Structure formats: C-alpha cells, structure tokens
C-alpha cells in the first residue's frame, strides 16, 4: 500500500521536476541573453535595445497599441488558409500515391524533385501570376506545405496491411468501404506527422514570404521595426514568432497524442 502511494507521489513529483527543468531552461536562456546585452555583446549602440527587458517592455507596448494583433492575425490567417488548401489537395493525392504502386512510380521523381525547391524560388513567378499580396504569400506557403503532407500520407497509405484489406472484403466492404474503414484510418498517424511538419515549415517560410510586399503580418513588421530602428520591437516580434510557432506545434502534438493509433 505505502509502496503504491509512494510510487504515485514519486510519479507526480517526477512530473513537477521535469516541468521545473523546462522552466529553468527558459530562465537560463533569458539570463544569458540579458547578460550578453549588459556586456554590450551586440555592440555599444544597440545592446540596450536588444535585451530581453527591452523586448518585454516593447511587447507590452505592442499589445496595448493593438499592433501585435494587427500583425499576428494576418500571419496566422495566411498560414491556416494555406494549410487548409494544402490538406485538401495533398491528402487525396497522398492516398492515391501510397495505395497504387503505379501512381507512386509515376509521381516519385517529380515529387522528390519539387519538394527540394525552396518555395521562395517561385516567388517571382507567384508575383507574376497572382501579383503582390495575400494570394502570392498563401500560394508560397501552400507550395511548401503540400510536400510533407503528400509524402507522409502516402507513406501511411502504403503501409496498409493486405490482411486488413482482405478482412474488410470478407466483411462486405467494397472499394469505398476499404477506403473509408481501412486505408484512411490507417494513414491518420502519418497524416498528422505530415501536418506537424507542414505547420513547421509554413511558419518558418511565412516570415520571408511576408517580406515580399504585403502591408501587414509579422514578417512585414520585422522589416518595419528595422526601418524605424526599433530593435526592442524587433526582438519582441521575434519572440512572438517563436511563441506562436511553439503553440501551433503544441496543438499538433496534442492531435497526434489524441488521434494517432498505436500498434
């Protein structure tokens, strides 16, 4: 009895200790950053405004002035729109590629080739076709998000055991039943892994993509703070970019925990 209680307490305490180390890491990081700026490591002119203290006060200012929301919302909107469009296109393609050997052979070289090209390389073409603005940015993000989604979904659909397919046929499943009850659910864990990778790269590509002439967004705001010599706001924006990226990824990890089946 006491053993069991002890084990439980130890488990709970263990979790607390784990969390404490996470927090400690963040504090250490801030301490190193603050010391670096106090030691003038960023140069004599700018070190003060590069400090976390300056960044946090600029962050407070940006929140109360509404600037933060004004620039975060378009960024999040662009990423989510492009992800949504990428999912719609990539999941069916991924299932086809994964399930039919011939489709995989047809697309293999092209897909491996395309996914190695930075979407920013397409930027001039995007601007010629869609003009400067939201559509171009969304297109570039879409272009970076589809590859991890397609490749992971096809990997998942390709792992479907022939045994499951035969079983479902003896249970009365036709092609659509096999697709709905076996292939798609079997591919869900890989789809979610693909989604996590897609969110990661989209969020990373977002900042340079928003430097291409849109009037708002976090990428735009980075350039704007630079032009106004507001390095404290620049550092605050960088922190916000990291924080939103972290939250998006946490959401993905939660989806994986909840919906990815185990063997």
């Amino acid at each position, binding site marked *: 009895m006491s053993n069991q209680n002890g084990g439980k307490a130890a488990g709970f305490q263990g979790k607390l200790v784990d969390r404490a180390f996470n927090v400690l890491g963040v504090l250490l990081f801030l301490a190193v950053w603050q010391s670096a700026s106090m030691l003038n490591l960023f140069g004599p002119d700018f070190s003060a405004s590069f400090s976390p203290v300056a960044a946090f006060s600029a962050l407070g200012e940006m929140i109360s002035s509404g600037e933060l929301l004004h620039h975060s919302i378009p960024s999040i909107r662009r990423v989510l729109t492009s992800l949504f469009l990428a999912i719609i296109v990539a999941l069916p393609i991924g299932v086809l590629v994964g399930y039919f050997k011939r489709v995989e052979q047809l697309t293999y070289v092209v897909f491996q080739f395309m996914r190695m090209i930075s979407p920013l390389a397409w930027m001039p073409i995007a601007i010629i076709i869609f003009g400067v603005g939201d559509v171009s940015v969304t297109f570039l993000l879409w272009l970076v998000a589809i590859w991890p989604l397609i490749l992971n979904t096809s990997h998942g659909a390709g792992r479907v*055991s022939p045994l*499951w397919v035969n*079983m479902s046929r*003896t*249970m*009365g*499943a036709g092609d659509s*039943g096999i697709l709905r009850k076996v292939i798609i659910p*079997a591919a869900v864990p890989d789809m979610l892994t693909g989604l996590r990778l897609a969110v990661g790269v989209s969020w990373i590509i977002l900042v340079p993509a928003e430097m291409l002439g849109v009037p708002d967004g976090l990428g735009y705001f980075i350039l704007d703070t630079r032009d106004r010599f507001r390095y404290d706001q620049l550092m605050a924006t960088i922190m916000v970019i990291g924080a939103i990226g972290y939250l998006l990824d946490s959401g993905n990890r939660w989806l994986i925990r909840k919906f990815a089946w185990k*063997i």
Partner: protein
Amino acid sequence: MNDMAKTGKLLLELKDVCKTFRKDGAEFRVLEGVNLRIDEGEFVCILGPTGCGKSVTLQIVAGLLDQSSGSVILDGKEERGPGPHKGMVFQEYALLPWRNVIENVEIGLELKGVSKKERRRIAMEYLEIVGLKGSERSMVHEISGGMRQRAAIARALANHPKILLMDEPFEALDALTKEEMQIQILKAWEKTKTTIFFVTHDVDEAIFLSDKICVMDINPGRVKKIIDNRLPRPRHENVCRTDKAFGEMRDQIIQLYSSLKDDELDLVF
C-alpha cells in the same frame, strides 16, 4: 445434441476445384480436383501438412482467390468474390489497431449500415458468446492473442454468415489457450448453429472439433479421404481426448499419412 441444428441440407459444394499458380514463368499446380460437400450446421475440418493448399482452398471459398477451374457452390448458387455471408477468421487475427474491441466487432454491421444502437447490441451479444464481455473497450494492443482471436470470431459471427471459414485460427496461441479456444469455438458453434469450415494441421484439433475431417494430400493438394467423426458431443469436458475412439481415429489418420515421405510431414500428432 447438435443433430438438431443439422438439417442434412447441402450448404457448400466444391466441385473439381483446381488452382494453378504461375511463378517465374512456370506453372505449378497447388490444388488438383478438390471435391467436398458440407451440410448446413456441420463442423468440417480440413487437415493436411503445411503447403498442401488448405489456405488456398479456404481463400477460394472466401472469394479472396479465384480457382483456375471447377466451381464453388454455396446455398445452390455459384460463388464469385468475397462477401459478408462468408465470414473469415484469419490466423493473424486481422483486427484494426485503431479500433477498440467492440468497434472491431461492429465493422461488418457498420458496412451494412446498421444503426449505432443496434450495432452495439448485436456486438455485445457476440462478445458475450465468445467470452469477451467486460473487455469491449480495450484496445487491440492491450489484450492477449487468445482474446484477439475471440474478438475476430465475434466480428465474423456478428455478420450472421452462412458459413464461417477459419484458417488455423489457434496456431499462434500457446497450448493451454489453444485448448480453451477449441472449447470456446464449440460453444459458439452450438449457440449460433453456424456452419464452420476449419483448417488445421493439428490431428487432435481436427478430431476434437469436427463432424467430418477432410484429409488432404500434398503435391498437388487434393482430398485424400473424408472421415466421418462420430465421437459423441458435447466434447467440452476434454475427457474425450483420452477416449479409445479418439485414439482409434488418430491412428487411422496417421495410417493415412504413413505413405507420405517423412520430410513432408509436419502434422502435430
């Protein structure tokens, strides 16, 4: 006692079923004119050494493979392709790992469009028949091999198949669980009165379970002899394995195989 379920009506007939596979351009014959008749409510075992074509025969009946010639007639109709009226239990269970036990059992009913409430009710009924009540919410990776196979049997039975096809379903289980499952399948058979066509290479298993044993020969696979098994039922109590009649039947089957070369024999005696 099970003579009540047996109507003497012919349910499944295999007529001159042949199967030829092509490998590296060469053809080789796996089944050579298999003939077999199974009556409604019967429990029939195919017994034969590994590689004699037992699985191929069962898959042809299930509609998962096409025969090269000959015909499979179920309930008076020539059969083509798989369907829910021919339930199949695979040696590897074939449960879907993203579903829990009861959701696995419900899959056939789901495909038929049965309402959720009705599905639950039917699935619970069959989980009870196979002795899995209480584990319906478990995930597949959480339960033992024996429990997985029970779930797979409940899943096949929940479709009300005309015939239940079982391909060495207990081979992956340990000896004790195997015996437990043999008793369980007899109980389920008596309750549901389903016709069962059961593949095994275990002589004792065939004798313990069946009304009729179809002994197969190898190279090419064909029916060597069909033996009527008149051991009394019910056989749950396990005593009958030591009966004189049980031993005699075992001897008879071993005699049949004595003509085969030793290296082709991997039957369990």
